[in-house]
């Protein structure tokens, strides 16, 4: 087939499509022509008549093709050079060319020589993903458009209503169903190509590719037209400050995102009538396309397990007062750093089911914890997770150990929080009493069964917590004498979550009652405390 016949075939195909659309969806063609002449692009025009999906598949449906079709079928479109044919220089009055799709990035307007616009954007997205070596299973395309686009759409609608509102076809043909938004339309255009290039499916929200379109000039202009123009005052203030030039880009960006939300909110409150009085309908033609920034963000992933803390000089979370660290290290940093590095994440957060003091060890099966990794570039495999655990457990300084480390769903986070008050904890405390204990004393301790105690906020935390009386339950206790010592005992106890064990032993000047000392009728002191079990099924 020769080039001309190929071209002719495409031509015929396009015309075929146009005939069908004209029959199904178009209003009288002079109305279509009018839209083109006020600067609305072909995709937006089709959108407004509910026929966008046809344009989607047909990249050669340019303004001139549509125009010649209109000329053929409608006399009013004929007759010499038409203003709508010069729209090749101006951008669409509604979408600023986003649906063509054009864009320009920081290095100037992108030229499309030889590559279709869709392929061009697809390549740019691909590069953004490759640059960070993201590992993908799926993606979601997020599109952010300047508020001006919504304003433009509304302006065109109102303009058409003004002009053709009384025609009997108006209600059926134009805006008859929910008009497809620019965002939806762009997604329809790009998703198939992206799916192919990235080789993964679109849908799941866990990895987001964001296309942020901005149009500074149009946004600023629109804002200045709106009532309650606080923006004007802010701009003059910033100019009066010292050396604004250096900071102006940053400030401008701040101002613009505030601009967008301000525009949205204000437009929502403005009725159609007021809208028409404030803005020029149809909107003025614009000659600059939108600026596009492509960014990727993975939603947080969670790696959980149980940790043991074997040192009495390591805090659970990073603890720094006045630039000085308390203790030698923290569980949070020891585990978090290794995890974050393997995942190549931007940062991590540590969550645990409860906590223990720096001088209290966490033994037994360990305490459930989660590391939330932000923007992980890759999701570790089961083997890699095992390797992280290996690394932590074989570290020289035996501060922390992890068990059952694995990748978990985000539901685990709320499961960890839920029912916190019911969780029981078990402890082993080394205590001293001011007199030797008799068998009767020991039985008193072992005989305890769900004993209620009242604890006033311990003095050691009273500076930062509310003064309250907290009722807590001591579920059971066991006590053994430490042979070879006098008056030392190992006290095992199982209590309700939130019980202050140290205060339960020494009484905190009588503010916890009953205390061990009070039960035995003597003075009791605590030397060491270990958590021996956190009774939770999670991450077991």
């Amino acid at each position, binding site marked *: 087939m020769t080039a001309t016949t190929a071209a002719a075939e495409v031509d015929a195909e396009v015309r075929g499509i146009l005939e069908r659309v004209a029959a199904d969806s178009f209003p009288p063609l002079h109305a279509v022509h009018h839209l083109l002449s006020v600067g609305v692009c072909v995709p937006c025009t089709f959108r407004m008549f509910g026929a966008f999906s046809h344009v989607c598949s047909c990249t050669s449906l340019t303004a001139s093709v549509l125009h010649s079709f209109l000329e053929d079928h409608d006399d009013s479109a004929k007759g010499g050079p038409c203003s709508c044919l010069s729209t090749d220089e101006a951008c669409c009055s509604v979408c600023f060319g986003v649906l063509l799709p054009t864009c320009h990035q920081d290095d100037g307007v992108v030229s499309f020589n030889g590559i279709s616009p869709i392929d061009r954007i697809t390549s740019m997205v691909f590069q953004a993903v490759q640059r960070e070596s993201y590992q993908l299973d799926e993606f979601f395309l997020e599109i952010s458009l300047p508020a001006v686009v919504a304003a433009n759409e509304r302006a065109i609608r109102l303009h058409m209503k003004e002009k053709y509102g009384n025609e009997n076809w108006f209600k059926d043909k134009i805006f008859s169903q929910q008009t497809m938004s620019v965002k939806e339309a762009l997604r329809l255009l790009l998703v198939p190509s992206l799916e192919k290039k990235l080789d993964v499916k679109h849908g799941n929200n866990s990895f987001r590719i964001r296309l942020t379109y901005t149009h500074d000039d149009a946004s600023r202009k629109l804002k200045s037209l709106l009532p309650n123009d606080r923006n004007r005052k802010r701009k003059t203030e910033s100019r009066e400050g010292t050396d604004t030039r250096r900071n102006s880009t940053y400030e401008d960006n701040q101002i613009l995102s505030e601009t967008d939300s301000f525009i949205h909110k204000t437009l929502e409150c403005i009725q159609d009538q007021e809208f028409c009085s404030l803005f020029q309908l149809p909107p003025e033609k614009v000659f600059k396309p939108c600026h596009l920034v492509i960014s990727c963000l993975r939603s947080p992933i969670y790696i959980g397990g149980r940790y043991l803390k074997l040192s009495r000089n390591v805090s659970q979370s990073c603890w720094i007062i006045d630039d000085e660290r308390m203790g030698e290290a923290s569980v949070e940093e020891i585990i978090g750093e290794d995890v974050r590095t393997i995942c190549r994440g931007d940062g991590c957060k540590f969550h645990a089911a409860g906590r223990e003091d720096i001088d209290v060890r966490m033994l037994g099966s360990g305490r459930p914890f989660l590391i939330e990794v932000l923007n992980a570039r890759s999701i570790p495999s089961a083997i890699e997770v095992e390797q992280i655990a290996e690394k932590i457990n074989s570290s020289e300084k035996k501060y922390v150990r992890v068990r059952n480390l694995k990748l978990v769903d985000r539901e685990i986070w709320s499961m960890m929080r839920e029912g916190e008050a019911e969780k029981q904890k078990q402890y082993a405390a080394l205590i*001293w009493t001011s007199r030797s204990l008799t*068998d009767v004393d*020991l039985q008193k301790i072992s005989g305890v069964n769900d004993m209620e105690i009242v604890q006033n906020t311990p003095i050691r*935390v009273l500076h930062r917590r509310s003064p309250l009386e907290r009722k807590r339950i001591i579920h059971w206790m066991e006590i053994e004498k430490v042979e070879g010592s006098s008056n030392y005992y190992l006290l095992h106890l199982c209590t309700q979550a939130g019980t202050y064990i140290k205060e339960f032993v020494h009484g905190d000047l*009588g503010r916890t009652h009953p205390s061990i000392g009070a039960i035995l009728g003597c003075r009791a*002191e605590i030397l060491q405390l270990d958590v021996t079990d956190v009774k939770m099924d999670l991450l077991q």
Partner: protein
Amino acid sequence: MAGEALGAPPPLVQEQAARGAAWLDEETRALIAPDAGSLPEAPASAVEANFARYFAADYLNPGHDQYVYRHPNGLCVVGLAPGHVALKEEGGITAVDFNVGKTDRSEIKVTGKRKRNAQHLQENSALCKVCTNDKSFIVRCCVKGSLLEINDRLIKQPNLLNTSSDREGYIAIFMPKPVDWLKIKDKFLSSEDYKSLRGIS
């Protein structure tokens, strides 16, 4: 089986020990087993270990000895030092009254992390009154700051002052501003100095 350092629990308690049968694994047992040889004869008390103890002798009045225990977090526990004259009276202290004229300090409710409603008192402000059989003595704050709590157990059990004025018989807890504490801390005596002053061991 588990550790010679630990004696077996008394026979009468065996059935309760059963509830903890799956209690602790060997490794945990080994970790928690204390080294009997390294344990001191009598360990430091919770007060000694956790607070810096300061004493004021003859505060505004001869024989009115008081203590201030200061916690590293800034809170100050105030009470009667062993040498206080009221403790020497026949019959000891029989009543404690927090109503010192303008306000009844036992009525104030301090709430929240920000410690709302706390009274801001001066060092010389009256904190409470302690009564013996035939006399009464005013106890002063000794510390300038917010009064967070008074020991209302003293109202029903004034005898706590006689048996353990240094612990359960404490009188009140204050939160001074760091600046205010620095101004007064050097006026106090250490525990040793106070003991030698009063001839207590």
